[in-house]
């Protein structure tokens, strides 16, 4: 295995918060030990307040750890902040790195100067990002006039302009419509394929995790509770898939299909939802059993919802 791009050992961070008149200590991250290899795409998930953003800030060098050690791109984030900044790109979904009152193009130029890109490298990389993120028409528009979806695409381009080895995205798709999310994800997949970029993203959007990540780190109250694939996570908590069937005519609830659980019916039974465990049966078998009972016009299979998976993990730990 090559040298890890992120390595933490027993990493921890406390915050002192005022609680009325008294002050108390809140442990935001605790005993976090993780290795991420170059080229991986890691989803860092957990509820609000689980410690995700705190971890990201520590690995980017903008927050000093209370305990433990952390190495990012082989550097010490706090001490080597400026060297590290040349190798990582960070997108905070809720903070802008663009110059609010200037055209998008100006922000790219300023960032290219900040990162000391040569004129050739600047032009090539800007062209590449403009094309892939479809920014051509936005280049002359002041940032304050962009829609959220447009701004996020410009933000991602800004964070990736210096071709960082590690890209960290903190809730990059928050507030975006379905199409904008889709475009952003496709871009990230392509970026990773062509440049071998390592991705680390925090999100509440399970679509992001499913389409972008091949590894999941799940945190609960500051501690790592799962490290592995999404499928593995679903399996561990026994997450079920849902089959949605549209029937030709109204029917009674399909409560007797083997190995399934009837979840709900709409339109006097024209559409029904059945949950099944992929370990115990298959979609084909469930469909066959349903077809024996009613005429099926259409169907869809829903993957386990990761929010639901996370909820189950949390519930099992409390």
């Amino acid at each position, binding site marked *: 295995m090559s040298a890890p791009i992120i390595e933490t050992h027993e990493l921890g961070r406390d915050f002192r918060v005022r609680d009325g008149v008294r002050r108390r200590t809140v442990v935001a991250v605790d005993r976090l030990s993780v290795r991420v290899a170059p080229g991986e795409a890691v989803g860092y998930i957990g509820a609000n307040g689980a410690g995700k953003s705190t971890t990201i800030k520590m690995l980017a060098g903008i927050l000093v750890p209370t305990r433990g050690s952390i190495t990012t791109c082989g550097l010490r984030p706090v001490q080597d902040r400026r060297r590290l900044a040349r190798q990582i790109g960070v997108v905070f979904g809720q*903070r802008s790195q663009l110059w609010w009152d200037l055209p998008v193009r100006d922000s790219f130029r300023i960032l290219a100067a900040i990162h000391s890109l040569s004129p050739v490298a600047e032009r090539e990389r800007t062209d590449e990002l403009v094309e892939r993120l479809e920014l051509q028409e936005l280049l002359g528009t002041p940032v304050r006039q962009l829609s959220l979806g447009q701004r996020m695409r410009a933000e991602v381009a800004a964070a990736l302009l210096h071709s960082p080895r590690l890209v960290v995205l903190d809730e990059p798709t928050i507030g975006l419509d379905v199409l904008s999310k889709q475009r952003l994800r496709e871009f990230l997949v392509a970026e990773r394929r062509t440049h071998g970029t390592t991705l680390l993203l925090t999100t509440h959007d399970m679509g992001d995790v499913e389409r972008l990540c091949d590894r999941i780190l799940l945190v609960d109250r500051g501690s790592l509770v799962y490290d592995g694939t999404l499928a593995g996570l679903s399996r561990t908590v026994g997450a079920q898939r849902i089959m949605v069937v549209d029937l030709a005519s109204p029917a009674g609830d399909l409560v007797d299909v083997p190995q399934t659980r009837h979840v709900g019916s709409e339109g006097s039974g024209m559409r029904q939802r059945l949950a099944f465990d992929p370990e115990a049966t298959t979609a084909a078998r469930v469909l066959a059993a349903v077809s024996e009972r009613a005429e099926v016009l259409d169907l869809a299979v829903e993957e386990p919802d990761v929010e639901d998976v996370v909820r189950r993990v949390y519930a099992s730990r409390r």
Partner: protein
Amino acid sequence: MFVRTYARLFVAGFRRQSTYRLAALGGLVANTTFGLLKVALLFAAVDAAGGQLSGYDVGAMSAYIWISQGLLGSINLFGRTDMAVRIRSGDVAVDFLRPVDVHLATIATEVGRSVFALLPRGLPSVAIGAFVVGMSLPDDPAAYVLGALSIVLGIVVSATTVYLVAATGFWLVETRGVEILYMVVSGFFAGLFVPIRLFPDWLHAAATATPFPSMMMYPVDVISGRVDGAESAGLVGLQVFWLATTIAAGQLATRAGRRRLEVQGG
């Protein structure tokens, strides 16, 4: 590389300010109005003193009034800065994610804005004053060269000093109190209301122990030719001293403050 980066940030500040033309016009109108008010008050004071007040005659007083009014768009005497807002909101985290010295990058951008403001506010203000009221200006071209240097130094000292107000935000989070204190003291000691020469000795001594006269009073004295060559060089020397002092303090505050930074929210 170093120069290119900070030059870009300077240009960014310059261009940002250039997008607010209507605000610049509003600023010029306000500067001119208050300039005329100062003319009425201070000319009366000079007349009452028999045509000479602490070395100022009417022509020198007019030069003081219009140059200082013209610098108002470029010198921060309010204490409010983008940096303070960014520290409070946590957006300063983005600044620390860049391979730059955050302190110097902030100064470069601020100075860019201030230099731009000389165009729509500084020069017209002096022109209006010269045309409407008349003023005495030096004949020696060397005075203008040193004067231009002194104005640039004044602008930079203003940015490096007000940065220190913003930097208190690393510890205080809410910096409005410090900003108000700065506003009260800075305008008075910078010579915004009356030239500091008119202060009683003890107050004049207090003013010169601060960086504030370096922002406005000294540049006005140098470029208006009110002080002679040797004294001008001395005032520019004082500006350089305050520049070095405030930059050193800003570097220390940023370094210490970064470790305190907890980045609000998100």
